[in-house]
């Protein structure tokens, strides 16, 4: 079996105020997979995500990215390999123009000059925002800012793209455009989401996290059609949505 892109073993973490958020999480993601991370509010999903690039240090257990353990001495390389797109694009677009924001990551990795420019334009092309390269972020719509936030992370050429609620607050057209972009990317994806149809549409496999432990790790279709599992962990399908009625599931 090849080295997983993401290998989390026995991850446990408690916040300084004593609140235990993770009780020993085991999960793995392999190259090329698109996996959804589902679970009720307060399950520990965001806490888990912050461990993946070393922002939070594990109390117990380990996180390994393509064989490299997440530890202080490797943080720079880990943060290149794991690209996290946070929920609020305004938190990630903090410089004056789109170009500067997308260049921030690769510039920190040491790229300069023409190589840096190429990396920036390439990332923007992949999300369809190349025309907006010299605009200030507050001149963009919410959906456009979301896409540029994805580009800022893609520009670092990560091995895994971790998205926190990518479809939240997007209008239906933007939601579809983002789905098209994610499908077109040739990168491993871990998507934290409440949007179950989105998870079914984009991620063949789902991991359900509840109260700090993994309670399911199966094909998304199996998770969404397991009524007992869903109701035990506050997961519900939107009104009128029936996975069994969908003709062909995405692979």
């Amino acid at each position, binding site marked *: 079996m090849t080295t997983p892109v993401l290998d989390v073993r026995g991850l446990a973490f408690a916040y300084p105020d004593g609140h235990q958020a993770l009780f020993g999480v085991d999960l793995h993601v392999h190259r090329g997979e698109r996996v959804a991370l589902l679970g009720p509010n307060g399950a520990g999903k965001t806490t888990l995500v912050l461990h993946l690039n070393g922002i939070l240090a594990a109390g117990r257990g380990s996180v390994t990215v393509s064989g490299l353990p997440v530890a202080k001495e490797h943080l*720079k390389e880990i943060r290149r390999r794991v690209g996290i797109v*946070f929920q609020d694009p305004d938190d990630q677009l*903090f410089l004056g*123009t789109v170009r500067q924001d997308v260049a921030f990551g690769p510039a920190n990795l040491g790229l300069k000059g023409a190589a840096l420019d190429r990396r920036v334009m390439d990332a923007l092309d992949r999300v369809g925002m190349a025309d907006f390269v010299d605009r200030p972020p507050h001149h963009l719509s919410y959906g456009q800012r979301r896409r540029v936030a994805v580009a800022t992370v893609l520009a670092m050429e990560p091995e895994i793209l971790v998205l926190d609620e990518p479809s939240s607050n997007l209008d239906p057209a933007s939601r579809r455009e983002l789905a098209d972009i994610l499908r077109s990317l040739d990168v491993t994806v871990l998507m934290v989401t409440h949007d179950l149809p989105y998870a079914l549409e984009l991620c063949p496999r789902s991991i359900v996290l509840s109260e700090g432990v993994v309670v399911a790790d199966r094909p998304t279709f199996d998770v969404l059609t397991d009524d007992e599992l869903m109701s035990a962990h506050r997961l519900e399908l939107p009104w009128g949505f029936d996975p069994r009625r969908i003709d062909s599931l995405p692979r």
Partner: protein
Amino acid sequence: MGAGHGHRLHFHGHSPVHRAPAHLKVLALLGFMLVVVATPRQAYAVFAPWAAVLLGVVALSRVPVRYLLPRMVVEVPFVVFAVLMPFIAHGPQTEVLGVSVSEPGLVAGVALLIKGTIGVLASLTLAATTEPQDLIRGLQRLRTPDLVVQIMGFMIRYLDVVTAELGRMMTALRSRGCDPRSPRHWPVLARSLGALFIRSYERGERVHLAMLSRGYDGRLPQSGEVR
């Protein structure tokens, strides 16, 4: 949450003043203000040519006076103080329109009014003819410390975000029967501003997390590399 145009001070145009390099405009403003402030208080005949130069620049920039005038409201506290000065200052008294006022106070008040108005109008003209990004680049060329420039950059970037949040809070306040303009509700307004400060602080922490996640190690990439 649509696309907004947040340049409340910048007036779009193509005049020679708009096209002039930002660092030269900053130096010109600084030099002009030093000269105006250094002019002795009672040399009224000297203020006239300074005012004429300033009005000439405003005319050249083609920024309408009715655009600049409302924005001069920032001077109001100083105008109020200047008007009060003849009444609260000590020293030999003199008569103006039948009212006895302090002569040094009167002179100081008039000088404050003249210098303040010239200064505010000059600064507004600079702001109206210079895009914020160009202004920052101009300051960089003038060797302003990198840290100061970066802080100003963040301020410009997040000013609109914070004021939009403030706008939403005010809408929520008004929708619940609280008028921020009435003194009775000022304590609520003060608490809302406190809450806004905390939210902005927390946003700062989230931005820091995003920066760390993209490899920030304490030094921002040199300005030459990130255009």
